[in-house]
Structure formats: structure tokens, C-alpha cells
């Protein structure tokens, strides 16, 4: 076929030598056509990045390709000598990476870094490298490209940096762009910008994109075809439409069921128990067998063969081999009804009123205070007993600071925090320490929040000892076992160290630690954003179950709207230190009133291909909280901004008992 751009045959990449090398890629076949977007989907550690690095021949020193072939057009990449391979790298193939923050050289200007690529690959532009660089910067939508040329990476925001990396990859006018999780580290509104940019560039240049991601929403948004990877193998390939209609492999199906969303509120999310098996072994059966619900006898002792059931569609599963294919339940993606469990009139447990946290900026010889970073600038919230309030917003909007200020981990500059009748901002010493038992926090990175040299038992006991609860040693031991059971871990876990657990299990330990002092409110600060969807589902299920059993309240800080829809009762949307809209989940998500909320919601990729929603694109980045724009903070980016929006900050308008929006559009 002449329209095939990249053809990978039976590629095997191993890491490490010795008796048990890690078979990171274990025989994959894959074809990418000219001009298409091909998504490679899979959970962490299944070999997606290794595939990309193998194609570019940029494997780490311990990695080597042991078998197979990779053809780009007619060229066999694995047979090229290194100096000719360098022409392909950055020439016909460009690559962009997951971490824009670290993938640029901090001591070279962005112009110099792009120019380098132009000099190597673009023979036609040698006279005027600089003009070409500015042209590239313009092509990736960077404002004032002439000025940005001389700036250093740290002067750019995350989204800008990713645009620079894209510009660099485009310098050689590639036919294939490999994008390894290009938007994972970015906020949704920025993610939408970058994805739209990639699409637009693709249409202009006709290049193919190999998009590596773990996000079904992103796949639905941009991909033409999908391959699902599991434990070093491709287990399913299909055109995007067909894949979303009928995922055939049990793993693909589970992925769909584990995405949180509003339609799943009343049910438990599907979880994929266990983890990806270690890859340093020869498999004698299906790699997914230990986690598969449909596992059969044959699955254990015979690896399933690749079944190419149609042109460009195939699956690797014993279920599919017989004629009786497609026994799976159709995946429902339709709008489910919102489970309305909110019946009794809720009594507020936590009330936050006009909370402000300003960090001083010092300057001069005597460190005079010359200004303030208004991280939180007048936030009011209420959380009833047994309910969940989600605080959403882009990174840097002050979500985490709100959480810390409520806990009095940071002293609020102004405002009140009432918890069950007590004014927390006025509590001191012993009284505050006692109150701490009622309010616990769970962090984003479970590993960083635990002392790696303490046993799980001691980690969980620590809080009990500090609060003087839990009784004597034997009682505490029983309590630890009981807590571990509550979060779904075996009692034997108590005598192990944190590093012996997977990311999801560690987060469970953190939940157990928080529960140990019998809190009434838990502040969850992005507790699942470092986890794979299947693991995220486990934690969300756990949190929901605990709420029902123990009547806990949650303040759930997140940027993930799907999680909000699944778990929260009420939402507060934050922008630049202030709440711009709040209300119940149904009110806000179904009928967003604030232009920022509307943009935020429209930017979230939805796992539903072709569902063409109206997309509101926000220009630029969130401004710095040290110098917020005058008037409505959102006006420089607001698509509906009016003359008077620049004058005064809009008052919060109540639309219902639970609903308030701060936007002049609603002021009559």
C-alpha cells in the first residue's frame, strides 16, 4: 500500500541485560497512514513511550531493539547508520514530549533552540534562519514571536512551552509527528488549545500524528484510528468510531467503564483490579488473564493470537476467535439521569466566609513589602454534613491554598472559617490541635506525603497518637487492621513500607491514615490526578462508599470535570483566587452561566467521537494573581467581554438558593 507512512513489524524492545530483561515491547505490529491521526492508548507502564522512543531510536542506554523492523516510507529505520538516522530524527519525524516544563534547555533562548533544528533540517532556509524561526513561532500561535525569540523557557507558561516544542518538531517539515502525552501536564483549556493547534497544523501540512495518550476523551476528540496497548502488546486496533461503538477487548471495555461521569453517579465505577503484570517474564497465557472478568481456562495456558477480523481492525483475545464475537454489553455513553439523593435539608458543617490569603512580595535592602500575590481573594463556601463540594479551576487559581487555609496550615489574611460552630481562625494551640482531628487532608502525591522509612502501621497510627485517640497499643493494632480493611487492603499491609505498594494502594493508605482520627471532613487535593483511570476508579469508589458509611463530608479539589460529575454534590468554579460560579452539580454542569465555566466545560474532551459540541476556545493563559486585571478578572480572555467588564468586579448574583454567578451579563 502506498499510502502507508510508517510500518512496524514484530517490534521487540528489551530493557536491561542479564537473566530477566524487561520486555517493554513484545512484538507489536502497527501501520500509520499518511495524514492520519493514530492514537496509541494504554495505562502507565504498558510500553507506549518505549514504542515512540524505539521509532526515533532514542532508547535509553539500557534499552535495545532485539527484533522486528520499522519502515518510514521505503526507508528501513533500524538499518540506517546513526548519522543518517539523525537526518530522519527531527527531519521526516518530529517528536513532542509529555513534560513541557522540563523538555526545553533552560539556558538557551527558545529562538536558539528552534534555530538549531532549522539549521540541521531545512536546507532552503539557511540564509535566513531567524525569519523561519519567527514564522514557526507564528505558526504555533505564539503572540509577539519576534520578542519571544529571545526569551528563555522559564519566561513562558506551560502551554507556550509546549507550543515551542511543537515549533521545534515542525522545523524539519515532518511527515510524522510523534506526540507522547503532549497535553497530560496541561490544564484543560490549554489542552484544548494545543490539541486544536495540532489538528490545524495537520490539516495545513498533511502530516500524520502518532498520539500517545491514556485519555479516552482526547482519543475521541482527535484520533482517526486507535490501538490499545497492554503489557507490551497491542490488544486491539480499530477505527475510532468503531472502537467507541463496540470496544471488543475486555481491557478496552473496562477502560470505558472506569471513566467517571455523571451518568454513573449511582453506580460503582468498574475497576480493573490488580496491576499490569511485570514484564520481565515469558507469558504462557493471556497477559490480561489475572484482571479479566471473562477469563476462561484456555486464557491461562495459551496466549491469544492476533485476530484481524477486518481491514485495519483486529483484537487479541480468545473470546473473539470463535464466531460468537461481540458478547460484550454495549457501552452506554448516553446522558444518564442524575441521581438525586439530596433530600434532607443539609446543615452546614463547614462555612467559609470571604477567605483571603495574600502572600507578600518583598523587595529592596530591607525586604519591604511591595505587593501581594492574591492567591485567594475573597472565597465563600459551605459544605453540609455528608456532602461533597468540588472546587475546580486551572492550575494556579488558588484551589490548594483554599484547602490549606481552611486547615489553618496557612494563616488566612482575612475571613472566617467556621467548623461546626467553632471559628477556626481564632483557635490557638491545644484547641486547634484537637480540632485537627475533625479535618483531614489527602494529597495528590501519596508517596511524597508519607515517610518512606516508616511502616504503614506507624504511618496510620501517627495521627491517633498525636490526637490521643485509639486507646492502648493492642487496641490501636485492631483499629489499624480495621482501617486497612475499610480501604480494601489486607491487614498484612501494616507491616510493610510504602514503596512496596502501587500508586493506587498508596493513596488507599493515605485515606486510611486520614480516617484513623475519625474526621468529619476530608479535604482531598487532587487525590487521583497522578493515577491511571482504572486506579482512579478504585479510589473514587472507595471515597464514595466511605461517605455513605460514615457520613463524611469532602472538599474535593480537582481540575477533572468528570470526577466532579461523578462524585460531587455541589461545585465551586475558581478563577484567579475567586469563586466565579457555584451551584449544585446539575445546575453548573448542565447549564453553566459564567463564560469561564462555559469555556472550561467545553474544553473537556469527552469520550464520544463525532459528538460535535460547540467548543469555546480561550485565548492566552491565566494572568498572574499578583497583578490581576482590573474589573472582571476574566475579561482579557472572556469571549463575551463588554466595555463595562473592565471597570468593576461583578457582584455575585444569586440565581437560586444554591446558585451564584459573578458576571455582569447577569446583572440587569
Amino acid at each position, binding site marked *: 500500500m502506498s499510502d502507508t507512512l510508517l510500518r512496524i513489524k514484530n517490534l521487540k524492545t528489551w530493557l536491561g541485560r542479564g537473566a530477566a530483561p524487561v520486555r517493554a515491547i513484545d512484538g507489536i505490529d502497527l501501520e500509520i497512514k499518511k495524514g492520519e491521526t493514530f492514537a496509541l492508548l494504554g495505562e502507565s507502564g504498558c510500553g507506549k513511550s518505549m514504542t515512540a522512543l524505539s521509532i526515533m531510536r532514542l532508547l535509553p542506554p539500557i534499552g535495545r531493539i532485539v527484533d522486528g523492523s520499522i519502515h518510514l516510507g521505503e526507508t528501513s529505520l533500524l538499518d540506517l547508520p546513526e548519522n543518517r538516522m539523525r537526518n530522519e530524527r527531527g527531519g521526516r519525524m518530529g517528536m513532542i514530549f509529555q513534560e513541557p516544563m522540563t*523538555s526545553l534547555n533552560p539556558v538557551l533562548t527558545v529562538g536558539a533552540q528552534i534555530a538549531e533544528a532549522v539549521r540541521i533540517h531545512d536546507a532552503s532556509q539557511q540564509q535566513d534562519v531567524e525569519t523561519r524561526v519567527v514564522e514557526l513561532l507564528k505558526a504555533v500561535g505564539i503572540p509577539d514571536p519576534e520578542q519571544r525569540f529571545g526569551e528563555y523557557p522559564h519566561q513562558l507558561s506551560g502551554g507556550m512551552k509546549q507550543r515551542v516544542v511543537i515549533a521545534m518538531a515542525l522545523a524539519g517539515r515532518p511527515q510524522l509527528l510523534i506526540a507522547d502525552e503532549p497535553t497530560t501536564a496541561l490544564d484543560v483549556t490549554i489542552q484544548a488549545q494545543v490539541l486544536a493547534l495540532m489538528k490545524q497544523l495537520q490539516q495545513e501540512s498533511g502530516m500524520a500524528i502518532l498520539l500517545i495518550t491514556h485519555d479516552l476523551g482526547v482519543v475521541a476528540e482527535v484520533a482517526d484510528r486507535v490501538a490499545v496497548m497492554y503489557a507490551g502488546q497491542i490488544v486491539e486496533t480499530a477505527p475510532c468510531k468503531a472502537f467507541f461503538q463496540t470496544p471488543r477487548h475486555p481491557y478496552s471495555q473496562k477502560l470505558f467503564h472506569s471513566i467517571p461521569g455523571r451518568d454513573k453517579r449511582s453506580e460503582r465505577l468498574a475497576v480493573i483490579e490488580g496491576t499490569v503484570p511485570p514484564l520481565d517474564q515469558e507469558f504462557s497465557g493471556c497477559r490480561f488473564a489475572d484482571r479479566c472478568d471473562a477469563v476462561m481456562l484456555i486464557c491461562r495456558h495459551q496466549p491469544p493470537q492476533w485476530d484481524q477480523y477486518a481491514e485495519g481492525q483486529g483484537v487479541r483475545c480468545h473470546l473473539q476467535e470463535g464466531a460468537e464475537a461481540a458478547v460484550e454489553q454495549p457501552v452506554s455513553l448516553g446522558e444518564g439521569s442524575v441521581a438525586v439523593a439530596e433530600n434532607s435539608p443539609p446543615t452546614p458543617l463547614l462555612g467559609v466566609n470571604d477567605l483571603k490569603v495574600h502572600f507578600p512580595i518583598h523587595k529592596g535592602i530591607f525586604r519591604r513589602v511591595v505587593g501581594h500575590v492574591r492567591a485567594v481573594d475573597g472565597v465563600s463556601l459551605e459544605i453540609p454534613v455528608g456532602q461533597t463540594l468540588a472546587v475546580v479551576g486551572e492550575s494556579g487559581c488558588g484551589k490548594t491554598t483554599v484547602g490549606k487555609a481552611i486547615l489553618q496550615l496557612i494563616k488566612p489574611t482575612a475571613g472566617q472559617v467556621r467548623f461546626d460552630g467553632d471559628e477556626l481562625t481564632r483557635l490557638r494551640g491545644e484547641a486547634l490541635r484537637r480540632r485537627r482531628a475533625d479535618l483531614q487532608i489527602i494529597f495528590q502525591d501519596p508517596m511524597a506525603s508519607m515517610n518512606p522509612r516508616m511502616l504503614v502501621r506507624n504511618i496510620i497510627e501517627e495521627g491517633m497518637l498525636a490526637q490521643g485517640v485509639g486507646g492502648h497499643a493492642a487496641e490501636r493494632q485492631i483499629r489499624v487492621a480495621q482501617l486497612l480493611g475499610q480501604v480494601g487492603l489486607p491487614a498484612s499491609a501494616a507491616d510493610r513500607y510504602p514503596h512496596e505498594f502501587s500508586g493506587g494502594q498508596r493513596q488507599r493508605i493515605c485515606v486510611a491514615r486520614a480516617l484513623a482520627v475519625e474526621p468529619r471532613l476530608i479535604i482531598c487535593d487532587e487525590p487521583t490526578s497522578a493515577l491511571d483511570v482504572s486506579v482512579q476508579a478504585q479510589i473514587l469508589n472507595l471515597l464514595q462508599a466511605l461517605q455513605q458509611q460514615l457520613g463524611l463530608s469532602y472538599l474535593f479539589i480537582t481540575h477533572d470535570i468528570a470526577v466532579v460529575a461523578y462524585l460531587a454534590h455541589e461545585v465551586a468554579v475558581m478563577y484567579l483566587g475567586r469563586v466565579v460560579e457555584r451551584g449544585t452539580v446539575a445546575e453548573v454542569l448542565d447549564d453553566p452561566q459564567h463564560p469561564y465555566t462555559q469555556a472550561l466545560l467545553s474544553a473537556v474532551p469527552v469520550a464520544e467521537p463525532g459528538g460535535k459540541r460547540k467548543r469555546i476556545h480561550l485565548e492566552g493563559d491565566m494572568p498572574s494573581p499578583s497583578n490581576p486585571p482590573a474589573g472582571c478578572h476574566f475579561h482579557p480572555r472572556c469571549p463575551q467581554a463588554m466595555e463595562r467588564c473592565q471597570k468593576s468586579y461583578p457582584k455575585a448574583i444569586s440565581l437560586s438558593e444554591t446558585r451564584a454567578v459573578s458576571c455582569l451579563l447577569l446583572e440587569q
Partner: protein
Amino acid sequence: MMAYIVRRALYGIPILIGVNVITFMLFFVVNSPEDMARMHLGMKRVAPEAIQKWKQEHGYDKPLLYNAAASGTESLTDTIFFEKSIKLFQFEFGSSDSGRDIGYDISQRMWPSLAIAVPTLIVGLAINITFALLIAFFRATYIDYWSVVLCVVMMSISALFYIIGGQYVVSKLLHLVPVSGYDTGLGAVKFLILPVIIGVIGGIGSGTRWYRTLFLEEINKDYVRTARSKGLSENRVLFQHVLKNAMIPILTGVVVILPLLFMGSLITENFFGIPGLGSYTIEAINRQDFAIVRSMVFLGSVLYILGLILTDISYTLVDPRVRLS
């Protein structure tokens, strides 16, 4: 930036006072003004009057830190410590206990010190960086492995061994250069070659190993992978990207010791008979000459603080991410 430097310099003052107090106390825990007087007048049978006279002449006739006889602020100011310290802060070192002008001695003796320290630093830096880059180029091979082993072996050998071994082989056996001594002008060169070479060799182990670590740390960073993905050659990646970033800690590590080069090296100068500031200090300690010891310690602290400030400034020059405020 200016404000920052001024503030840092002001922070230095309490440090200097502290260092001064500690030197003073340590010295007078071991010695008393009587001991010093005896030492200078010749140990045996000195008349108490002579001691008293010496103390008076040299300003050691007051209480050490606190004058109970005086009143008000005088109880603190009318002491040996205060009178001897306050001049230091005006960089007036005065005369040594044996009567020589310390400021003049320092200005004479810093040149031989610099004549050894500066070439040692520059040659050592060039050699260590070259070796480290080579090792980084051959990372994760046997060359890398054995180079590190060699570095560790070289680090573990005492500096004294290099000095004595070098003097024995080069001077005693081969008669290439004199064992020790010094001369003015160009005549000094033959006395300097050996200490410089030995200084460089002695530093290769730790220097190369440290720079290798810096290079490897940079090589594993994401931006290097990005640079490779552009199709840059390994040489360009190393020189254009890795070296530029690794030079930041290397340079600032050098800048911090630059001012201290004046102070010379205690051991080297002593063994090679170089009349620099290092041997000056050692001699003063042996003679219990408190005026010189105190001046040298003070000078060392000032230079150290200067080094720290220079380091901060050099950061802003080489690292675009750092702005002082």
C-alpha cells in the same frame, strides 16, 4: 541587584563578629597574655616587670572580654577583645606581636601564594572538565567504570603522599627542579612548577568525579532527549546543551573559592618553602603571634563572604532563571 548585594554584605557583619569572638576565645583558652609575653621575651626566667611592660606595650594589659572595673559601655569597650577587634573592621591590621607591619607583610606574601594557586586552579579546571566530558561520552561502558575507580583511588591518597612522592622522584632522583625554595621574578618558575603539577594531580580524582556526576545528571534530563530528537549529533548535544548547563555549578563552585586563593595553601607552601600567606599563618601559629593569626582568620572570613556574594552574582550572569532580589 545592588540592594541584594548590600543586604548580603550587611549580613556578613554579624558573621565576622562571631568568627572574631570564636578565634579570640580559642586562642586564649590555650594561651594567656603571660604565655605570649614569655614566648616573645625568651622563655626562661623573665622578670614579672618585663612581662608587664611587654603586655602594656602590646596592649594585652586589660581584661580579655569584660572589664569589671570600668562602668557602663566601657566595661565592654575597655578590653583586649574590643580594642583589637575594632581596628580589624577598618582593615588596619596593625603590627604583629614581634613588631612587624602585618598589612605590609600580607601585601608582600600574597604574590607567591597566588603564583601557585592561580595556575593550579586553571590547569586543574581544564584537565578535570576534559576528563569528565570524555568519561561522560563513554558513559555506561568499561571506560566509565574504570575511570571512576581510578578517580576514587586518587581521591583516597593523601595530599602529603603526592607532595613527598613528587619531591622524591622529580627532585631527588631526576634532579629536574629544586626540592624547595623561592626566588623573585622569573627565577621563581623552577620552584613553582612542581607544586603546581602536584596540586593539579592531587585534585584530579575528586574534581573529575564530581564533574562527571554533574554531566551525567544533565545528560539524563528531558531537554537532552528533546535536543537529540531534533537530530543533533552527540557532540553537539554534549557541547551545546549539556556543557552549558553543567558549567553553571562548575563555574559558581570556582567563583566561591576565587577570593580564597589569596590565602595560599598551608601544607603546600610549607613543604616547598614558598614564602606565601599559607606559610605565614603557620609560622605565626607556631610563634603564638596572636595579632597575625587573628588578622589572617579575619581576612579569610572576609574573603569567604566575598566569595559567597560573588557566587550569587555569577549565578545571575550564567543562569537566566536566577534573578537576585
